[in-house]
């Protein structure tokens, strides 16, 4: 078994302690590398196991919950820089695939951002209310299921109309797989994976506010 398969099997057992142990075996990895090189391939492998009829959706839910717990533990007490910027993160209404979003949220926190993380399935009206009241400079969206795409357009357009002009970032399984531009507004930035997200964060830091909406 390769690394991803091993980690996937531990996640599927729901054994968070063993997952933690497995990740701790490579203490030299940065958090981004843990997300990108360990957790992402393991979760992708779990998707593959369903596609090849080896596990059920119920198994996937267990693995997701276990992964969620481990991510919370990883994000706990991370070193934070100061940036005084605000970002909110959500999955489209009905979208339950939130692990990637959670990792992105954690990356932003690591860069000193103040974040609100809503996780799976947030109806547009709630998202808009928070966006208007709290005025984050970034709104991060995640989409993984094709039939949620029509909703994406609705969300992207609603956010584009916000008067404080937040940058809208879009990620999720589909962002790496298809061209999602037709479902976005002009101001949506598509980030196809975590390294791209990190790069965006670094550019944002380097360029300050004016780059926030490129």
């Amino acid at each position, binding site marked *: 078994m390769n690394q991803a398969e091993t980690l996937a099997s531990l996640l599927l057992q729901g054994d968070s302690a063993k997952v933690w142990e497995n990740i701790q075996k490579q203490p030299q990895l940065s958090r981004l590398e843990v997300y990108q090189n360990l957790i992402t391939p393991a979760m992708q492998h779990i998707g593959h196991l*369903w596609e090849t*009829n080896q596990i*059920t*959706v*119920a198994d996937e*839910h267990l693995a997701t*919950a276990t992964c969620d717990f481990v991510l*919370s533990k990883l994000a706990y007490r991370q070193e934070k820089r100061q940036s005084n910027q605000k970002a909110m993160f959500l999955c489209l209404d009905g979208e339950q695939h939130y692990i990637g979003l959670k990792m992105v949220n954690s990356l932003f926190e690591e860069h000193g951002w103040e974040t609100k*993380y809503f*996780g799976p399935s947030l109806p547009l009206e709630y998202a808009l209310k928070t966006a208007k009241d709290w005025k984050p400079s970034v709104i991060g969206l995640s989409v993984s299921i094709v039939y949620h795409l029509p909703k994406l357009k609705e969300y992207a357009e609603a956010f584009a109309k916000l008067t404080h002009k937040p940058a809208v970032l879009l990620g999720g399984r589909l962002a790496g797989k298809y061209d999602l531009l037709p479902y976005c507004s002009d101001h949506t930035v598509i980030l196809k994976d975590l390294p791209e997200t990190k790069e965006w964060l670094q550019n944002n830091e380097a360029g300050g506010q004016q780059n926030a909406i490129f």
Partner: protein
Amino acid sequence: MQYFDQPLPLAFLKADRNGKIVSYSGIARESFDLSEGHLKGIIDEESIEKLIQYSWEPGLDPVKLELNMKTRETPLSLFEVHIQWDSEDYANMLFLPKDSSNENLMDKLMQLQQRLSSTDFELLEKKEELEQVLIRLNQLSGPFIPLSETLCMIPLFGDITADKINVISESCLKAVFAGEYEEILFDLTAVGEIEGKGIEKFTQLLKTLNFMTGSIIKLIGIKPNLAKVLNTYKLDEWVQIDQSLKQVLNVYFNRNELGAT
């Protein structure tokens, strides 16, 4: 496409090797839109590959697999599909809805997760509140009190930490520069513990005051436990030490009386 006239409790479909539906049960017709007459019309695009790969080899054993289906009600719904090939090379398929059986469990799981994250959030908010309170507390822990035109006092309250001295320094320097004080008293009566970084900052403040104003700086109200700690920091270069406010005031008034006479 033929109606399969048997009262089956689950959706049933019979399809040929190309996926063309040849027969359907009542529940299948109710659940799925069969107008295309083809399995592709009712199975989610991303599940079709799975169906072909894992059940389209004819065999004697029934095959079981989970597929996402398009139903009349929702565009994506999970089903457990049982498939048995018959001797005429038709796939007999039974569709067991899975979402409903998972739903309860999923809801519970989501609730638990949401509770965890909302607790997390509440904790975070409390933490932020607490940080604000601490800053406020620090601001109030070193009030500036002018006693006369030439004498002022800054009593310190609580533990001496770097954060607290930082907060106090700003207001203290501002207030001292605004007047012309000959003596500045720091009253340490209400001080609890002293942190190493705190005393470093405090020494810096004393030096700054000393350089900038040339005033006499006095520490008063030093308790025995503080004396031990302060002794290691060689403060006497910058400050004088007096026992209490009472003593300082006595000296001050006596001197002024003498001056007056």
